């Protein structure tokens, strides 16, 4: 049976509660900042300024957000099938290999707008392939996907180091990375969009894959709520027994869902590899796979929530970097703490303030205080 929570109006549910959660997260983060002897208000100002203050910063924020949209969508799709894909990190890493293979093969013969679709396919294929193995073990053997995807993150990391050092590195080069892609392997930047809006930008990695991310968000919405496959994914996510009754093969639906999830995670690689660094280098994912979990949680596994959540985390990444630079007492790790607090309050403790807000609403207008299902055990 569902918890006896009263129903809130939609604006409170999707607007007010996340805002309150965020505010509390920042409040606690502020205390931490005070603890290390810095002024929390100034820290907040630097953070926001660093994320949104100038065109330059906005472009960086959106660049990070692009990666988080992909990984957030990847986690969300799996969530709808009640699978917890923690392997976004590894899938994105291997997805980068797909991008690099395509770019290295075609960058000298094709223009970028022909290489781009091939690279999308490469990224998706490689990411999906990396998700396939844990999916297969889950579907056929019942090995828990949380465990196997975590392990596959480590395997991916080792594999990529091996490939970069031993296979992909041009002879004689020092760094474990591929050669730089030629023009055909470089995505156009989108900075001009911001410039057209009156911002000035020196140089920033904000690129075309941002639009691809938005398109992916829309397609995920279509997939989950408007296709037969999405219907079956949600069915199995809510009730494996009902899915069995409806003749939905558990094995098949788990594997397909994970392939889609892995493909989305893999596509994240387009953003840094083809959009920014223009070469495949070690550790380019830098935690985006894990941030995706937080983004999916905060965005309630809905694309319309994931995009803003990804932008918020983009702000934290970009603003956090500025903050660490400006305030010597605040290290990079502190930023991670702040991000962790946001995840804690917006994700894990999402319902903490709900009862009191509901009581408040109930006392203000008793009619709006409906309630979640009382019959059955749905929740």
């Amino acid at each position, binding site marked *: *049976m*569902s918890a*006896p929570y*009263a129903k809130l109006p939609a604006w409170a549910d999707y607007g007010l509660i996340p805002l309150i959660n965020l505010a509390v997260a920042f409040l606690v983060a502020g205390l931490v900042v005070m603890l290390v002897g810095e002024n929390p208000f100034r820290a907040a100002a630097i953070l926001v300024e660093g994320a949104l203050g100038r065109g330059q910063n906005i472009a960086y924020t959106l660049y990070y957000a692009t990666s988080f949209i992909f990984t957030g969508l990847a986690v969300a799709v799996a969530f709808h099938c009640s699978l917890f894909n923690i392997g976004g990190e590894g899938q994105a890493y291997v997805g980068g290999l797909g991008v690099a293979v395509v770019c290295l093969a075609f960058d000298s013969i094709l223009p970028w707008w022909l290489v781009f679709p091939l690279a999308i396919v490469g990224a998706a294929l490689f990411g999906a392939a990396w998700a396939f193995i844990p999916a297969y073990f889950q579907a056929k053997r019942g090995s828990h996907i949380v465990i196997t995807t975590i392990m596959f993150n480590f395997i991916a990391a080792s594999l990529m180091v091996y490939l970069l050092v031993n296979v992909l590195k041009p002879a004689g080069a020092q760094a474990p990375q591929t050669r730089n892609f030629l023009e055909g392997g470089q995505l156009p930047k989108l900075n001009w969009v911001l410039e057209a809006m009156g911002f000035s930008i020196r140089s920033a990695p904000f690129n075309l894959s941002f639009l691809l991310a938005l398109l992916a968000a829309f397609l995920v919405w*279509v997939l989950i709520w*408007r*296709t*037969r*496959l999405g*219907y*079956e994914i*949600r*069915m199995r996510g*809510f*009730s494996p*027994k*009902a899915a*069995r*009754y*409806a*003749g*939905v*093969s558990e094995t098949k639906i788990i594997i397909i869902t994970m392939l889609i999830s892995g493909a989305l995670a893999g596509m994240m690689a387009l953003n840094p590899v083809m959009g920014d660094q223009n070469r495949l280098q070690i550790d380019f994912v830098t935690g985006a796979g894990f941030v995706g979990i937080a983004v999916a949680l905060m965005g309630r596994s809905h694309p319309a929530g994931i995009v803003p959540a990804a932008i918020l985390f983009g702000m934290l990444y970009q603003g956090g970097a500025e903050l660490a630079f400006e305030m010597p007492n605040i290290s990079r790790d502190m930023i991670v703490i702040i991000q962790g607090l946001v995840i804690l309050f917006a994700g894990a403790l999402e319902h903490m303030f709900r009862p009191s807000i509901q*009581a408040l609403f*109930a006392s203000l207008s*008793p*009619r709006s*205080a*409906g*309630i*979640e*299902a*009382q*019959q*059955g*055990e*749905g*929740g």
Partner: protein
Amino acid sequence: MAETAIELKGISKSFGAVHANRNIDLKIEAGTIHGVIGENGAGKSTLMSILYGFYQADRGRIHVGGKKAAINTPSDAIALGIGMVHQHFMLVQNFSVLENVILGAEGEALLNTSIARARSELERLERDYGLEVDPDSIIEDLPVGLQQRVEILKALYRGADILILDEPTGVLTPAEADHLFRILEQLKEEGKTIILITHKLREIMAITDNVSVMRQGTMVATRRTAETSVEELAELMVGRRVLLQVEKGEAKPGEVLLSVRNLTVKDSRGVTMVDNVSLDVRAGEIVGIAGVAGNGQSQLLDAITGVRRAVSGTVTLGGEPVDLTGAADPADLRARGMAHVPEDRHHVGLVLPFEENENAMLGYHRQAKYLNGPFLNIEAIRADAREKIEKYDIRPPDCRLKTANFSGGNQQKIVLAREMEQDPKVLIVGQPTRGVDVGAIEFIHKRLIDMRDQGKAVLLVSVELDEIRSLSDRILVMFAGRVVGERGPEASEGELGLLMAGVEEKEAAE
């Protein structure tokens, strides 16, 4: 005039456009058993949830023991001595009985001392009320009847003087129900007040002192049980005369449409649940499977419909036999013309978080009429759902409402509508009227007879012997996984009862 334990005055409650309760007045005398009846969705559970603090009323007052009470949460209700046993139990499956009883009422920080105290208190309660359960057994190992006892113990442990039971007998076998009623009688003698919600008018007549009838959110009447009759109550509930007897003509059985051969099913622990069962159902007949719950009927249904894997056996629906041991595919069986109303509508037959229209096509969602290529045809799906809502009088008539928010009986109608409207050759039905009101029972029974008369083969499993006897053209009795006898519908209740209890065929016939 006895003391008043609870008085509700002008209680109203809406969920959006649905007025679940309108201006309800109700007086419950202390030390009595008070029945509350009404159609599915009449608002019984809502009213009780208000009394128990799960919902807040939009308007109205509650008096407990003569004093005005503010009940905002279940803990307020518990503090006032109100306890509730829900329609769906709320026990932690892998905790022991004792742990479940003290959960949320642990007392001090040190669990040891409170556990010791709880144990002696629990033992006292069990003795006083004849509610024996081993405090150390794990909930998931207990049959439902005992789980329910734990729920009652939980309420008593918290000092309940007023006990609300929401459809407590829906899940019980007749023998378990009898035992429950003896316990309730005893609680009443101890001076407790009991509110009993049920759809079974027989139970109301047998055990209650007073009975209140709800219809579409209003309280239409309260009667002294001794001064009313089943017929009057049914009419009050539905607002018209109800046929309590099934009317049906001669069966005209045709060719065999469903034929099951050598079916053997084991459970996860390897215990044989269905033992080499073969049966045939012909076009135009209803074959009922009688038996005490837990004798393999559920597994039989699950295996025939491909939901559960069998150890051996085949099913034939005209044409090729389908092997049930491998990955028998429910979708394939459906495509061959088998419709299935599962026993467990909550976990199997419905996805409760889905909108109603999404459940109205569950299992049939591959049909072209619901799709545009790989896309869902949302318009068509909703139109189809609205049609079924209309035809089966599902309330509230809102195909976008979350399925969990429909009352129990209406959820059952959603499943029935879906399966019957597919025009199947064979209909397999488990417990079709569990938790369903008299008006709806009449409707469902009529539809089942209609299906038969249209030449469908119907296989019916029910723990309600009355239902089996009044609907079936042939009755198979299951005991310990085997079909131990076949009888015509004229067989006496006593004779079937003996077969169901495992008395040998020859003896039973004597």
